[in-house]
């Protein structure tokens, strides 16, 4: 009986964890650390920590407190964690968000709570248009932008009939509408497959349809864990050499490491588009990539690059107000200048706080050690702005 009461008091004590108020800049970071998508989150956290190392864990003269939360790849949990960061930890900035649906579910909590919200990946169209917010900034891109670049590449390669495959969630739909906006040929087929933690990974039925459709190119968006699975099945189905593959956010450092392990050499020389590449020639990027490789033994992905930029962006805001995080107007003004060393070189913000930036054609090749990576080829779009900015009235 005594034991029971003691245990009960422990439980009761747990409910009363007080919030610690200290003179620090607090950054909450919501990303995915568990489930197969956890590899993407790990990349982001590694990069953010490198960024913090680079700035000596200080912003505007204050120490930075960096709080990481795992959204478990679920919108509801992401929102719950955001609520916790807002209400319990009382952070100044909430950053991260790999997934558009998690961001859409969480944005209200962060913005209504009066926090700055920095997306380090997801760029769903509502946030670029009607639902834009003065305290929301993207350190990545609007979802439609990258596939729009791919659409241009498809046109230049003379593709007439396109088959599209994408997961069925917010970003997937944006990716599809992005490529459809710039691609001038005919879309002969489209499959939207199940996404989330129970995502569909066997594409046999869809690939058979693609093959039968008479398409002369396939466009896919399969981020994270689905990427290598798709490419493997694409090769096993014998489609390489018959129907070329164009991808966005599918072939990256994480999927390449696994594809190389699996010996799928077919991916070498394949094309994709992106706002950044590991060998993009600027000083910040060189330092970032070198340090990332030294620390983790991997090439960074674009997820990592964006997380690095998110921290640097926040620093530029906090520095501008000398650490006085109550001066939100001052921080906002500084953030919208995007005046910081980005791994993609210089970019600027549109009125909806999404970057206006270049998009590059990249190809997969082996480096001096034989490791595969995506390498810069040429610039496809220069200073490209998303198509939703004019719906945003700030």
């Amino acid at each position, binding site marked *: 009986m005594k034991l029971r009461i003691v245990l009960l008091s422990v439980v009761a004590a747990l*409910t009363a*964890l*007080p919030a610690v108020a200290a003179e620090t800049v607090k950054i909450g970071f919501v990303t995915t650390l568990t489930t197969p998508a956890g590899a993407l989150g790990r990349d982001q956290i590694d990069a953010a920590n490198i960024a913090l190392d680079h700035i000596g864990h200080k912003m505007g003269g204050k120490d930075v407190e960096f709080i990481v939360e795992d959204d478990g790849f*679920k919108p*509801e949990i992401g*929102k*719950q964690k955001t609520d916790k960061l807002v209400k319990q930890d009382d952070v100044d900035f909430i950053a991260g968000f790999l997934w558009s649906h998690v961001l859409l*579910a969480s944005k*209200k909590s962060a913005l209504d709570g009066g926090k700055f919200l920095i997306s380090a990946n997801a760029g769903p169209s509502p946030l670029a248009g009607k639902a834009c917010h003065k305290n929301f900034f993207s350190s990545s891109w609007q979802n439609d932008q990258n596939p729009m670049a791919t659409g241009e590449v498809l046109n230049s390669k003379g593709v007439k009939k396109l088959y599209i495959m994408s997961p069925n969630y917010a970003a997937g739909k944006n990716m599809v509408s992005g490529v459809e906006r710039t691609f001038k040929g005919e879309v002969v087929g489209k499959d939207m497959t199940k996404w989330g933690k129970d995502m569909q990974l066997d594409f046999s039925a869809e690939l058979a349809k693609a093959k039968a459709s008479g398409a002369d190119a396939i466009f896919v968006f399969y981020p994270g864990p689905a990427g290598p699975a798709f490419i493997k099945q694409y090769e096993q189905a014998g489609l390489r050499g018959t129907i070329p593959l164009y991808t966005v956010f599918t072939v990256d450092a994480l999927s390449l490491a696994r594809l190389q392990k699996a010996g799928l050499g077919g991916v070498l020389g394949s094309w994709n588009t992106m706002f950044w590449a590991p060998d993009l020639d600027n000083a910040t990027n060189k330092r970032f990539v070198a340090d990332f490789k030294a620390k983790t033994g991997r090439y960074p992905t674009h997820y990592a690059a964006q997380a690095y930029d998110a921290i640097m962006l926040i620093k530029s805001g906090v520095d501008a107000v000398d650490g006085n995080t109550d001066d939100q107007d001052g921080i906002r003004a500084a953030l919208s200048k995007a005046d910081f060393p980005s791994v993609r070189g210089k970019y600027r913000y549109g009125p909806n706080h999404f970057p206006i930036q270049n998009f590059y054609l990249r190809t997969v090749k082996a480096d001096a050690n034989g490791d595969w990576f995506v390498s810069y080829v040429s610039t496809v779009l220069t200073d490209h702005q998303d198509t939703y900015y004019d719906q945003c009235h700030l």
Partner: protein
Amino acid sequence: MSLSTLTLRGFVTVLMLAVLALVPPLVDLTGNAFLIDLATRCVILAIAAVSLNLILGYGRMISFGHAAYLGIGAYAVGIPVYYEIYNGYLHILVAMAVSAVFAFATGLVCLRTRGVNFIMITMAFAQMVFFTFVSMEEYGGDDGLVIEVRSEFSRFINLEDATTLYYVCFASLLVVLYLVKRIVSSRFGMVIRGARGNELRMQSLGFDTFRYKLICYVIAGTICGFAGALLGNFTNFISPEMMDWTRSGELIFMVVLGGAGSLFGPVLGVSVFLLLEEFLSGLWLYWQLVFGIFLILVVLFANGGIDSWLSGRSKRSHDS
């Protein structure tokens, strides 16, 4: 049942209710506004768990699809709000009516089956609801639906205020607890409990147990639909994910952890579950390992859940 253990159980129940009643002022003292979120979620899920307990604990109907009602209830708020219909009474009415109809229609099929087939078919129906909402592109599909504005009731009940929302949920829990208490000790409840113990005997006494169980199933679903409407208001967001089979599994665990077939057990179960989840997930990325092992240990060694522990007796699990 000795006097001292009886009072411990009563003591905890009263203490628990007192703490829940005083959450908002206590939260003000700590200055941690997140705790009221935690308490609100706890109270809402407690309503769901109490409703599940009505069929699972008292009726031994192991529904593995109870989370579907949470989803139905939440969408019954989300979809009208999407069309800018904010009337809370309407939301609640729709949530409960749709849940009742769904429970009735599926109960007609489910209750014909026994044992694991019942478990699996309740899950199958929940999966159907899950995929139905996934397919509804207009309401966000897989991404879910943001509920921008909470249900509107009268001028005096403003759910946008965290404290008000909390007290609405807490009052609802009290009402539901009282309702379930009345039901289980009524003639109807006697039949349900009798059918749990010995269904054949109940039939030989002349009870059409199928109909009684069906009505019980509908009542439980309706209450859970109501909890779903509160959940939708609380989270400001609803996605099919909330109806995943793992969510139904969690609800069952909450009930069993607290003590299936005891009135207040599910409330304790939900509280311990959420506190543990909150506490462990803050400590360790791999907290689910601890959680999983804890679950197994509870099943293996804590028969009858927290409730029987408090009342100092270990209840044999009722073998069906």
